[in-house]
């Protein structure tokens, strides 16, 4: 009887084995599902990364393809006779005479000489429109820097006006109705003739890197904005780095943990979330209207951006300070270092790479900031390259904004080119941050 029951019910040993087998089966069944889920998850991840990368590729491709033309500039090679009677009829070689001479006439006459059959005033004007107004300026510079050239004939490569540059690049073409484009059929014919004679060539647009803004696209350059950005960033760095690091060190190392410091902490985090244009308004109201600081100046721009960058630096610095192991602090304290010495000798140097990384990221953010600078007048059209922090200036992103807003067709390419310059700076800064982090990363 008992034996029969035993075989029916299974021995405990059998039961255990049975249960193990069933569990193993269940695991095997669920495995497939789990692997499938894992594969799906990986696919989502790859998909997400792929989409992000695709956007970046499209963005860069668009910017680069539309910006590249701006780096070349069409020029006409002409043999200009620097006539004594036009430049300096009295032969005084006086500097003001040299500066104020009618170089336009010189240049235009040279071009007109290429087309002896053009006689009417209107046609002459239309023909000379091919040359940029910068051509005369170029000759002026040449003569004033070397007056001994007067009387000689020099071969000069003179920039053409932006519209003809675009025609040369194929952006403006005969496909558009004549009334809808800024280059007439007649002008196109003249330009083609010049090309046939082999005196039109495309050269590197150095003007773009050496000039400030201009109404004429072919004379507009990025250097003014780049200088403005540099000066603004210097002011921002000089203000936000020491203030930010001091605040972070105090809050992290010295401040008592009470309600007040908690409120301060929350508000610093809030500050990081304040829209940047609000900082611009604050700068306008306080720095310019109340303190009477100059408008459009890198000084004020830098101050406003410093306000904006401060929370980033403080938060990053505090994280970096927090990451320094307490054992280092204890070691120094145990040796009898004062709290100040603990911070300056040990904690701060160890946190510095993190602080630098945070600062660079904050600065990169500030470099790309436009809105607050619009409020304080850094959106002005400025032809001079700023020489100091109180000179009127604009910055790279604002220059992009200004050019994007310009009606001239040629500014389209220059806008993209300016974006490329800006992105180059940003990528460089971010790379620097990564490099610093890699180089000084420490393990305890």
């Amino acid at each position, binding site marked *: 009887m008992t034996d029969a029951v035993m075989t029916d019910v299974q021995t405990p040993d059998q039961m255990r084995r049975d249960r193990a087998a069933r569990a193993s089966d269940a695991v095997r069944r669920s495995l497939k599902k789990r692997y499938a889920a894992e594969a799906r998850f990986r696919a989502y991840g790859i998909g997400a990364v792929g989409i992000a990368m695709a956007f970046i590729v499209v963005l860069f491709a668009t910017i680069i393809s539309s910006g590249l033309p701006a780096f070349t500039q069409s020029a006409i090679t002409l043999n200009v006779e620097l006539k004594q009677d036009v430049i300096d009829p009295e032969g005084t070689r006086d500097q003001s005479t040299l500066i104020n001479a009618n170089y336009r006439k010189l240049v235009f006459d040279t071009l007109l000489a290429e087309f002896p059959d053009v006689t009417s005033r209107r046609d002459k004007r239309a023909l000379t429109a091919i040359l940029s107004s910068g051509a005369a300026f170029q000759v002026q510079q040449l003569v004033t820097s070397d007056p001994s050239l007067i009387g000689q004939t020099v071969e000069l490569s003179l920039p053409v006006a932006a519209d003809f540059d675009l025609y040369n690049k194929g952006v403006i073409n005969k496909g558009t109705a004549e009334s809808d484009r800024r280059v007439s059929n007649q002008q196109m014919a003249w330009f083609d003739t010049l090309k046939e004679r082999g005196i039109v060539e495309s050269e590197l647009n150095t003007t773009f890197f050496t000039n400030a803004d201009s109404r004429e696209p072919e004379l507009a350059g990025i250097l003014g904005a780049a200088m403005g950005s540099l000066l603004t960033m210097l002011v921002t760095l000089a203000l936000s780095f020491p203030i930010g690091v001091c605040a972070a060190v105090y809050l992290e190392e010295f401040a008592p943990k009470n309600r007040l410091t908690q409120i301060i902490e929350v508000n610093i985090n809030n500050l990081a979330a304040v829209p940047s244009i609000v900082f611009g308004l604050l700068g306008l109201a306080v720095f310019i209207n109340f303190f009477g600081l100059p408008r459009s100046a890198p000084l004020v721009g830098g101050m406003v951006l410093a306000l904006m960058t401060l929370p980033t630096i403080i938060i990053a610095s505090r994280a970096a300070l927090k990451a320094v*192991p307490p054992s280092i602090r*204890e*070691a120094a*304290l*145990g*040796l*009898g*270092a*004062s709290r100040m010495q603990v911070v300056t000798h040990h904690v701060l140097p160890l946190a510095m790479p993190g602080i630098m990384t945070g600062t660079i990221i904050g600065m990169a953010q500030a470099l790309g900031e436009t809105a607050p600078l619009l409020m304080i007048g850094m959106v002005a059209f400025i032809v001079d390259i700023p020489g100091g922090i109180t000179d009127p200036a604009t910055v790279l992103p604002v220059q992009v904004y200004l050019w994007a807003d310009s009606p001239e067709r040629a500014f389209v390419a220059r806008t993209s080119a300016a974006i490329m310059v800006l992105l180059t700076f940003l990528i460089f800064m971010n790379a620097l941050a990564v490099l610093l982090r890699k180089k000084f990363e420490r393990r*305890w």
Partner: protein
Amino acid sequence: MGEVDMSNKVEVTAPMASADAARETKFHTRGVQVFYGEKQALFDVDLDIYENEVTALIGPSGCGKSTYLRTLNRMNDTIDICRVKGKIELDGTDVYSDKIDVVHLRARVGMVFQKPNPFPKSIYENIAYGPRIHGIATGKEEIDQIVEESLIKASLWEEVKDRLDEPGTGLSGGQQQRLCIARAIAVQPEVILMDEPCSALDPIATARIEELIDELRDNFTIVIVTHSMQQAARVSQRTAFFHLGDLVEVGETGKIFTTPQDQRTQDYITGRFG
């Protein structure tokens, strides 16, 4: 050293007692209470620490032995919510009074921590740091000498004399801990506090540190917190047993381990709890 057996104990009890009076008291603490916020961590601890002796503090985790140790050089100051009450005198001066500056106190009472914590600097800089900030040594030669002496005393010199410029963090765990001891010695303290100095080390490194502690006894007063009763028995002359924030029993190490007076001490050293 260190093996405590009955025969030894019986013989030395009487002479030790008389020696008690002759020994100089370094730390004299009475009614020490420590609070972490609302929680009381130490209840009325009365303990004397004698000069040129190793005093071991033992007890189960959370019994307050480390807390007591850290009141001696005011390392508890760094914890915001920590309050200390009672009398803690170093050579007759209350360490919590205005008469003693905390920086000066820590120069006199050095500390070695549980986990070796060398600065992420060179071996040389690790040791030179203390003398330099205190102005004990100024010239390069003087500091060189202190570095060498400290490393010799910490029996690390032979191993590192050719690579003083290498980072201290590159040494092995045991070497790092000896470096930390050398660093503490370099400031020429009177007392060295050790908070479980061997708990992160392997047995061989532990044995070296224990040997070292025994040698250091000639020049320094040492207070050591340890979880290992064997270690307490091996290195210390006096042992204090803490339990739940109370100082249960204190006495000659031999006596504590052989004839404890309190049932709780008895239970702990026989491994019934802890």
